[in-house]
């Protein structure tokens, strides 16, 4: 039978099938962080059971960490307790922790790929919906709830129904200034926020084949924003080159053997999907969101739609926008370049190449937050730090930062923030904050101009 990439990886991990029920899926790698793991560790204690495969668990602290003065104790008492609890739990159960201060610490979906923990053909989970990021490697990776974190702790397995399959193909060439973030924002705007529910998506076509691993991660990261549990891209030479030589990647002969297997993973010619969509790269332009879910996106040069609907209305009221108006020229006082969507070295290179030699506008507070300690090091090594600092941007330390309004970095109520993160929900970046999702290039341009600006105009200026 002809199989999809997803089928091949899934089928290789099925331990057993419950008659008329779910399947038992084996999980290769389990990533954990401070927010969604404490109750799962408690579960083990309450039942008096051990952690089944501690070597397959990797931990880091990211959501709740400050991005300034990480060498000092955390000032917020509850955050401090949660981060300390992670250290205690990892110690008690023997889990490898890349905590605050460790050179490998970072947002879980940035640090695991860069260490080579993420590899093609694996199954990976984390108590975090953006685990879909790792699908960029041809990995089945998805977010789980805390009860499931406890299940994986206890058995290295999950009980799951096999999802349906969807393929999204984008062929053609992207115009200059159109980044992977625009591709995924465009797809979600076209399909809607629940189009993917119940599906696992495969992204195919030359646009993804020509993308770097960083770009592929940006795309797969946001699969959850259309409701899909995960997204995948077939592993190819770009993938193998990225994985090769990384800390936890197989080495030498073992690596070659793996590559031979990974090469068998791409979807067979003629394999069937439950749902297929096709888009043309030429139709995609730099995007921005105007509402309070990631599906409410438009091309920067387009006007806000004129939909008549109570939920749409509520959303526009929150954002302070009118039906049918253009966003161009709207003043913006905050920009945030960071998060597991866009805090990899390539994202900062794109931003820096625009910013170089320019200054941020006076009204703007510009936050640059690397996704990991390693990215931070590279920013410095490549001289980007100087570029950002000379332009008046604040370069912070690694963490989730202003992506979620949980740690100290928040956007004040009522303020607009052009953000490279993945969610523009009400209050996501702080109570009352208004988020506009966009690419790192759009964020950089906004910072320099102090208002929403067309990318083509800015690049040609």
């Amino acid at each position, binding site marked *: 039978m002809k199989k999809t990439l997803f089928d091949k990886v899934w089928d*290789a991990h099925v*331990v*057993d099938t*419950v008659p*008329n*029920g*779910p399947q*038992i899926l*084996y999980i290769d790698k389990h990533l954990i962080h401070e*927010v*969604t793991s*404490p*109750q799962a560790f*408690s*579960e083990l204690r309450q039942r008096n*059971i051990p952690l089944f495969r501690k070597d397959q668990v990797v931990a880091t602290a990211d*959501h*709740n960490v400050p991005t300034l003065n990480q060498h000092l104790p955390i000032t*917020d008492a*509850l*955050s401090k307790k*949660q981060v300390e609890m992670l250290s205690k739990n990892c110690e008690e159960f023997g889990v490898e922790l890349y905590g605050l201060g460790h050179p490998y610490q970072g947002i879980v979906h940035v640090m695991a790929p860069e260490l080579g923990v993420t590899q093609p*053909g694996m199954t990976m989970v984390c*108590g*975090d*919906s953006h685990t879909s990021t790792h699908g960029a490697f041809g990995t089945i990776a998805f*977010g*789980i*709830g*805390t*009860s*499931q974190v*406890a299940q994986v702790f*206890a*058995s*290295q*397995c*999950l009980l799951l*129904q096999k999802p349906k399959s969807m393929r999204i193909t984008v062929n053609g060439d992207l115009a200059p200034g159109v980044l992977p973030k625009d591709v995924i924002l465009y797809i979600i705007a076209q399909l809607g*926020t*629940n189009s993917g*529910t119940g599906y696992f998506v495969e992204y195919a076509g030359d646009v993804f084949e020509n993308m770097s691993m960083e770009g592929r991660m940006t795309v797969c990261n946001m699969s959850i924003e259309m*409701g899909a*549990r995960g997204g995948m891209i077939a592993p190819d030479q770009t993938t193998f080159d990225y994985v090769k030589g990384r800390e936890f990647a197989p080495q030498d002969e073992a690596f070659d053997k793996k590559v031979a*297997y990974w090469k068998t993973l791409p979807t067979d010619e003629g394999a069937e999907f439950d749902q297929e969509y096709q888009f043309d790269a030429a139709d995609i332009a730099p995007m921005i969101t105007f509402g309070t*879910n990631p599906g409410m996106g438009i091309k920067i040069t387009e006007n806000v739609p004129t939909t008549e*609907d*109570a*939920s749409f209305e*509520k959303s526009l009221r929150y954002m302070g926008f009118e039906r049918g108006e253009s966003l161009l020229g709207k003043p913006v006082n905050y920009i945030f370049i960071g998060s597991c969507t866009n805090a990899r070295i390539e994202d900062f290179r794109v931003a820096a190449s625009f910013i170089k030699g320019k200054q941020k506008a006076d009204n703007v507070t510009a936050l640059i937050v690397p996704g990991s300690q390693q990215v931070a090091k590279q920013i410095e090594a490549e001289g980007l730090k100087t570029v950002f600092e000379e332009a008046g941007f604040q370069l912070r330390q690694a963490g989730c930062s202003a992506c*979620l*309004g*949980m740690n100290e970095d928040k956007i004040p*109520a009522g303020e607009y923030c052009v953000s490279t993160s993945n*969610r523009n*929900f*009400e*209050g*996501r970046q702080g*109570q009352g904050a208004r988020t506009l999702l966009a690419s790192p290039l759009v964020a950089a341009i906004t910072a320099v101009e102090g208002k929403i600006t067309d990318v083509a105009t800015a690049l040609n200026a």
Partner: protein
Amino acid sequence: MEKFTKLTSRAIPMPIKDIDTDQIIPARFLKATDKAGFGENLFRDWRFHKDGNPNTDFVLNSETYTGKILVAGDNFGCGSSREHAAWALEDYGFRVIISSFFADIFKGNALNNGLLPIQVSEATLEAILNKISENPETELVVDLEKQELSLDAIGLKESFEINEYKKMCLLNGYDDIDFLLSKKEAIEIFEKQRTN
């Protein structure tokens, strides 16, 4: 996990689409390291003004509506995987959520916490919402054994879907860990036999 068999209750209408888990429980309340007490901050930023006073326009603060059933708009529970959302709803006192569509992760989290998500058609959802706003004292009956949702006042009797295994878990108050632990041997054999 608490057992679920049959529930007769009034319901609370919330006809808003795409209610994400950041609204159900905002991130700043995720710092707790145990499961208790999240109900206090359920829908925090819709329920309370910034100064801490209750927002009297919000349905959970209205004296008209009460009950253990929440009837919500399409695509309920989208966004973050935080199970805290299910804990908050359950802790507040809900046992059933009715919507025309649920996000995947939320649905799983709810079922793992004895909270029953019932998916109905758009038309049924509208009929239920209309009836409860017309008469807030209307009671709905949820019978898990029969997989049946009824609202006698409008002659509604509909069956709903639930995975057979999950139904068994809810009816008995079992959870997945118990089941997986019973499969240890098969899991160890799988580990030994795999080649890739």
